[in-house]
């Protein structure tokens, strides 16, 4: 009962947020809708029992990436005026009724085709059975510390590269003429 409620709520928030992101012409608002969408995805993860993934989604995406995006928008000076100095709209319109109509039809056709392909696979798979709130953290930790220890270590190199990259791009450029 509650599982269904949680799933429906999360799915609604995710889809509603995603649609609003596309529909919104204000970048700041789009970012807020994206936050809602990411939040909903965390709920979806929680629905399938992946509690650690859900929390990571909250910490990294809802807390980190959204702030990063907000700061990135502020680098451009926010959304103060939508018209640039040449009198053109900065934020291009996301389409009109005609394009929405055709996009809708295309989406429906594509999803039907994909469903048709997936239907056999889905029917063949038995419904997965999870134990009551099996602690995924311990399993993840064990896997990260044994089988995938190399991936764990390499990811630190990846993070190091990202850290140095972030530092380098932010450095003030050298003055050519003194």
């Amino acid at each position, binding site marked *: *009962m*509650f*599982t*269904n*409620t*949680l799933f429906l*709520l999360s799915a609604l928030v995710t889809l509603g947020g995603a649609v609003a992101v596309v529909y919104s012409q204000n970048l700041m608002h789009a970012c807020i809708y994206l936050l809602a969408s990411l939040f909903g995805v965390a709920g979806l993860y*929680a*629905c399938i*029992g992946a509690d*650690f993934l859900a929390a*990571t989604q909250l*910490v*990294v995406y809802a*807390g*980190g990436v959204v*702030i*990063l995006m907000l*700061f*990135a928008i*502020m*680098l*451009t*000076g*926010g*959304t*103060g*005026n939508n018209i640039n100095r040449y009198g053109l709209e900065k934020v291009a319109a996301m389409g009109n009724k005609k394009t929405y109509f055709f996009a809708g039809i295309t989406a429906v056709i594509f999803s039907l085709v994909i469903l048709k392909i997936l239907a056999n696979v889905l029917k063949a798979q038995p*419904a*997965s*059975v*999870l134990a*009551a*709130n*099996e602690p995924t*953290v*311990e399993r*993840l*930790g*064990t896997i*990260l*510390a044994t089988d995938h*220890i190399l991936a*764990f*270590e390499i*990811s*630190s*190199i990846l*993070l*190091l590269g*990202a*850290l*140095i990259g*972030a*530092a380098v791009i*932010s*450095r*003030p450029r*050298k*003055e050519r003429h003194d």
Partner: protein
Amino acid sequence: MSTFNLDVYMPVVILIALALLVAGGSMLLGSFIRPHHPNKLKETAYECGEEPIGSAWANFNVRFYVIALIFIIFDVESALMFPVAAVFKRFNEIGLGGTLLISITTFTLVLVAGIVYCWKKGDLDWVKSFNPQVNVASKDK
């Protein structure tokens, strides 16, 4: 019925709903009894009595963005560390603590190397000099 129990998440949903209810309810309650006499002066942004010039939405310094970038890197790092840290005790009890200790140490030291690099290059200084040869922070002392 579902195959597994998600009832533990019930308080989370209830609390989020309650937060919206409390906030929305107090605003709604207020809307019945509070005065509403807007005028142009009231609705201008407060700038200590001066008339505001232009919008506040200006381009912001890139250093905020860099802070956010570094934050995400450490956020991901802690997200990766949490599960490994959670099993450390158990591994230690069955005598595999040494392996895990080495793995955690390597992981952390690689990131420490990153911090040391940024520190040496002056990227962690808030007040930056535009002449890379002169380090403002060191001149302060």
